[in-house]
Structure formats: C-alpha cells, structure tokens
C-alpha cells in the first residue's frame, strides 16, 4: 500500500512536470482553455439565451464555465488514461510495477490541476454570488464524484485499449456524445420534452447540476444532486476497477 502511494505520487508528479515543464504559468495555462471557450460561447450564444438566465449574460457565462470544466476534466483525463497501460508496456516488461497506478496517476494529475486551478475560481464565484460559506465548503464533494467517476472510466477504457487499439476513435465519439447531451452551452429548457427526459441519464448530469446550484443557486443547497454525483462516482470506480482486475492477468501477454 505504502509502495502504491509512493508510486502514485512520483508518477503524478512526472505527468504534471511533463505538462508544464516546471513553469508556474502552467496553472494559469490550464484555466485558459475553459475560459477562452466560455468567452466564445458567451459571445455567440450569450445574448440569444440570456432570457433563460434571468436576463444576465454574465450568469450564462458562469453556467457555461462550470459545465465546461466538468466535461473537459472528464474527457481530458480519461482519453489520456486510455493508453496508460499500453504506453508503459516497455516499463511493465522490465520492472514489477502494479498496473493500477498508471490510470490512477493520469487522473490524479488532472485532479491536482482541477484542485489548484478551477476550485479556487469556483469558490470565489460561489462567495460572490451566494455570500454563503457553507456552499463553498460543499464544492469539493461533486468534484470528488467527478474524479471518482473519471477514474472508473479510465480503468475501463485502459483495459479495453489493451485488446482493441482502434478504440480511441470510437472513444472520441463517446466523449462528444457526453458533451452534447450535457446542457453545457444551452439551457435544458430549449430541448423538447420527450428528449429532455433522457438528458438526466448522462452520468455527469448530477455533478454539473450540483456545482451550478452550489455556485449560483439560492436557498437550501441541492443535496440530492451532490449525493447522486458521489454515488455515481463510487459506482463507476467500483465497476471500472472490477473489470480492470478481472482482465489484468492477460495484460502482460498482449502489451
């Protein structure tokens, strides 16, 4: 266990270093992408959709930003973790290393980024818009749900990739599907009733819902959504790890 923790820390550090090459600007850089995209969406759709957001374009921009950070974390971490077992095949053939640290360290490196980049920004937004410290304190919960769920998908996809090397193309389609079916840049209200019913089946839906409620809502926080986000995270991780462990014995023959 101690060894796994050491490995996880060392490998996560390596990924972060590789991404930023040691510059402090890295954290700013990781925020640039969602901020720029929020800007583009707001410029294009903000005015047309403002009626759904109490007439406020700023409100629309905040809603978009929260949705984007969720979907970008999910698709970024899982599509990088997808190849984590196969990419390290050289290493795994020479040194005895527990397989499970590779997908975990990829997701962990994205989680660190989320914690030092997005989270402070969300706290500031929450405090400004709701003046409620309790809500700000609850913010890490849906983010934890998101991280757990992504880790589960990372385990599942890295297992499948060992068997099928053409999976990245198909996975790109899946993340696009998740992206569009989450009401990120459009209000759920514009979706026809018979389609809207299905949007809640997107596993990331409760996470987005609860983050938006915490940061921008009023009254009693939406606790059921937070619970749902955590439950989906735990379930996803359990399922992903089970499949990963079930197939692990065959990995060495195929990578």
């Amino acid at each position, binding site marked *: 266990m101690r060894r796994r923790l050491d490995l996880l820390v*060392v490998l996560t550090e390596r990924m972060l270093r590789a991404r930023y090459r040691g510059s402090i600007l890295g954290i700013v850089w990781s925020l640039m992408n969602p901020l720029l995209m929020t800007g583009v969406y707001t410029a294009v759709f903000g005015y047309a959709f403002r009626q759904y957001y109490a007439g406020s374009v700023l409100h629309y921009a905040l809603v978009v930003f929260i949705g984007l950070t969720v979907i970008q974390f999910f698709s970024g971490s899982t599509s990088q973790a997808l190849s984590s077992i196969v990419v390290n095949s050289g290493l795994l053939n*020479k040194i005895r290393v527990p397989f499970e640290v590779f997908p975990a360290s990829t997701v962990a490196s994205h989680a660190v980024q989320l914690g030092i980049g997005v989270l402070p920004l969300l706290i500031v937004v929450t405090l400004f818009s709701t003046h409620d410290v309790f809500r700000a304190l609850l913010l890490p919960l849906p983010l934890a749900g998101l991280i757990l769920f992504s880790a589960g998908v990372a385990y599942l996809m890295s297992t499948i990739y060992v068997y*099928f090397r053409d999976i990245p193309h198909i996975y790109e389609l899946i993340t696009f599907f998740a992206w569009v079916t989450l009401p990120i840049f459009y209000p759920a209200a514009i979706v026809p009733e018979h389609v809207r019913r299905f949007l809640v089946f997107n596993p990331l839906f409760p996470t987005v819902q609860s983050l938006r409620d915490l940061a921008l809502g009023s009254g009693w926080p939406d606790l059921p959504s937070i619970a749902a986000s955590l439950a989906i995270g735990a379930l996803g991780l359990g399922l992903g790890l089970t499949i990963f462990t079930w197939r692990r014995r065959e990995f*060495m023959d195929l990578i």
Partner: protein
Amino acid sequence: MRLEAVSLWRRLQEEASFDLKRRIFTLLKARRYERRRRRVLDAVSLDLPKGEKLGIIGPNGSGKSTMLKIICGILSPSEGKVSVEGSIAPLIELGAGFDPDLAVRDNILLYGVLLGHSAAEMRAKMPFILEFAELDEFADVPVRALSSGMVARLGFAIATDTNPDILILDEVLSVGDESFRNKSRRRIESMWHDHVTVLLVSHDLQFIRESCSRAIWMQAGGIVKDGSPGDVVDAYLRSVDSSAQERLARARARLAP
C-alpha cells in the same frame, strides 16, 4: 529461492487482432474465434540456496529471460509455485524506466520508486548515487541531454545501490567507459563475494565457466542440464556442435548427386 514445477502459458500476440472493427466483422461472419496459447516454460524446477552464483545458458527463445521475469515477479506462472526470499535487483536493460524529459535528480527518485524503494529512502541515497555515477554536476539536467554512456552509468548506479539479496544480470556487465567499467566490475565483484545470490544470463561461456558456482542449460522452456559450470558448458557446446554437424551433413546430402 525456489521454483517448483513452474509452467507458463502465454497468449500469442500475433493472433490477437487488436482491432475492434475487424473483430466485429469476424463475429458477424460467424467465424470461430479461438485463443491460441503457447507453453513458454515447461515445469521448470529450480532450488537455489543463498549465495549461489548461477549461470544460465541456452539458445535464443529458450525461456531464459522469461524465467528471470517470473523470478522478478513481472510475470506470474500459470502453474507451479515461485518463492523468493529477499530483495531483488534486476539489472535488465538498465534505465528502462527513465523519463528523458525529467532531470537526473527526478529520474533517480522515479526509477528507485519503480524498482520498489520508498521515496524517502531514495531521497536519502541521492548524493551517493550521483557520486557513484559521476553525475553530480548534471543533477538538474534532463536525462535527454546525457550521453548514452552516462545514462547507462546512472541506471547501474541506481540499481546496485541497494544491497540486494538477489542480483539478476542479463548481459549487462559492460557499462560506460573504461574507468567506469572497472568501477562497476568492482561493485559486482564485491557483491559476488558477499552472500548475494546471482543469476546471470550470458552468452560468454568462458565467463560462466570461470565465475559461476553452478550452471543450467535451458532449451525449449525446460532445463536440460543442471550441474557444475564446466560440465554444463561442455555438454551445451557438444550439442551445438553436433547439431551444426548434422545440418552440414544434411546440406551435403542435398548437394550430392
């Protein structure tokens, strides 16, 4: 260290298509898909007392490296039992775990932790490793910028700076330039004279004859002969010789009118 009737079956890579689309088409055409397996190790038993220096010889593809991987725990046996007491230092392809973009210092930490040491332990050993590898001045330089000799020195320094109980050498006795080679030979020799158990795969039969206390000859996933290095090397050479003679005779027979 002990192997009891260890066998290993591996799935054949060539047979796996690695392609989801093709696999679906194959299923649609109702073609039978069956997994083929190959036996790489066939009931290998080996009992190695502490301090024994074992030389392993045999042709390519006879299972030598596979057996070492089983002993290191990289592969787990399909049948049989492996029991290893003590820590292992695998000197197989030094530097396999290096990240070229990371600084030497970070790579020492990374490689050490990958080899199974704790991060705290590696931090404490850092100066000694840098000193032995003669890379003090390069501690903050990315490994990419080092020469290949320097990288090999670094790998050797990390892998051997740990007082292992079992040392596994897979053809890596010559590392770096002349002066470092002497230094690394001295370090290996000092382990050699200690109570360290050594497993050595080499095609340098003379070296095995002179330095090992025991040798095994592997062929087609099994141990053909186990005994004193002199006997085993002689038997191996005779068999290689006679099979070469046979091939020669067959070739002659074909050419003869």
